[in-house]
């Protein structure tokens, strides 16, 4: 069982990186906070954790998937209502923030175009995880982490540039 002292240390060391990772992963800080909290609760119930950081990021990734599936089911039930609500709530963005919002939207779209493993590996790496930790968290071989990351980076750049070109063409 993880001791309370150890859990406190884990929380102190990894809460902020984990929330950032999840925010980047989900695009929503509320959800990121929730899942980060769930992750630490699970850590509390865990008998032993050998590689703490990779364990936390792996559990957080799994929770994202679980929660996503659950919410997806809800979404399907309420698609019609959602569409109506969207139509009613569509608001033109502030001109001053439009450019920034567009950049973020492009980044969000581009990151979502990656395969899940590529995306997780990239976001974990950006959060400072080492190759060994990424391999452990994602169940990859150590040798394939570099390949996964290089592919993720290339595809992310390609997707982003492609989206930018589409956006420019629409404006033109």
């Amino acid at each position, binding site marked *: 069982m993880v001791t309370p002292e150890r859990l*406190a240390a884990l929380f102190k060391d990894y809460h902020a990186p984990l929330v950032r990772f999840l925010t980047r992963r989900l695009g929503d800080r509320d959800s990121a906070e*929730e899942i980060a909290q769930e992750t630490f609760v699970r850590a509390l119930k865990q008998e032993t954790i050998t590689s703490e950081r990779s364990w936390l990021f792996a559990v957080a990734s799994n929770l994202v998937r679980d929660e996503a599936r659950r919410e997806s089911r809800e979404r399907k039930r309420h698609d019609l209502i959602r569409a109506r609500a969207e139509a009613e709530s569509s608001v033109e963005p502030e001109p001053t923030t439009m450019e920034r919002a567009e950049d973020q939207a492009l980044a*969000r779209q581009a990151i979502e*175009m990656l395969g899940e493993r590529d995306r997780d590996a990239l976001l974990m790496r950006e959060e400072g995880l080492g190759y060994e930790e990424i391999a452990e968290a994602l169940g990859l*071989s150590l040798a394939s982490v570099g390949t996964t990351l290089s592919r993720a980076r290339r595809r992310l750049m390609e997707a982003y540039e492609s989206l930018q070109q589409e956006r420019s063409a629409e404006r033109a």
Partner: protein
Amino acid sequence: MTDRPMDATDAAGEHPDEGLIHAWLDEALDAAESERLAAHVRECPVCQERVAEARGLIAGASRIVAALDDAPAGSRAGWAQNAVSGAATAAGGAGGDSATPVTDRSLWRWLRVTPARAALAATILVALGITLTQGRLADDSAKPMASVFNPQRADAPAFDSAGEGAGAGGLARSERVAARDPLLDSAVARNLELSQGRRVLKAVPGQPLPQAPPTPSPAAPAELDSRAVVAGRAESQARREITGAVAADRARVGIARDAPASDVVSADREAGAQSSATAKTADVAQLSRETGNDVGITCLRVESAEPGASWGEQTFPMVLAVDPAPASGARGVAVLTTAGAPTPARGSWIGLGGDSVSIILRRIGYAGSMVLGPDRGARAGVAVSSPASAQLEQVAVGEAAPQARSRADGARAEARKAAAPSAAATPPAATATQPSAPAGPPVRQLRVTARATTCPTR
């Protein structure tokens, strides 16, 4: 990374593949392997290009990922669909619902109710109830949340990670030890701060509230008139010195702040109202940025090594309670005893740039100032003060006026050229605003040290 062979080459078998290059740039290779790859890259133009490209990809991807950090709370952008579809393409192919708009919001998002949220809310409510039952005062908003994560509370309910609500057991199985864990509490407080944003108190824009003039001492009614004159002059001087440019001028040429009033006023008039207002605003803003103490009252404990030394009639050590920076104008300073007792003396806190400040004493019967250098753990400076009679005698000295004005003009022109940083580059400048040697009683120049301290309860 020892299990990756160096011969992980591209299809042609001549060069290290892209993954290996990324691992090398990510410093994930061991020393020997890294050196081998580096040696190869030095000799291979093809690989040099690949390395350059990989560097670009790494930097570009980091930039794109960093752009995701602007995601506000409650803006989950159809991530559920994307995550699920992403899972289907977990093998690495491009997937996901790229067409899902970022503004996609479900009814549940509108209602902001999710199972996890409901579980959290229930847990927090139960924890809060337990906390109140135990008679603990909730001294901060982090406590209810802290109990959620405080495994030392054997009676705290478990958070059901499956998101189905607060379950029974869970944390209750933890061993009961110390009552609270301050480290964990602070971490949870930080968590709350991240989720709710930092609560910052800022001054309401507009004119500062007028302050009542210092109450004249009933012990000396005969001196009331002269003291009122001195107090009025101190106030008007404080208003004049609010601009960083004026303060910089005086720092440069060493003009006494007690120079003839007409002289100083005419010099200030030349500066122009517009530039003065701009400089004042910039000065206050800069001070707030540099000191970071624009929230709430901050206190400085000021000490002097000289025995029996005083500023005005207040002996050292003393505590200066500095008001928050107003939208415009100087920050008010209350002079307190170290026990927190108020004294009749007050002051005006004026930034000089470069984190140096001047504090103009506002006390009937006295005139004085204190110049403190930048805060490097402590602020070193000089304090001067003198009885009002000395000030009145100084006003009577008129011959030095033209010279002082020309010095001020020249210095002000220099200050304009050099702009604010030049003032900042003139550090503590403890002698800047000291009164010139008066013809009357000698003015004591006291070396003082000011350190941030907890404001005493007044």
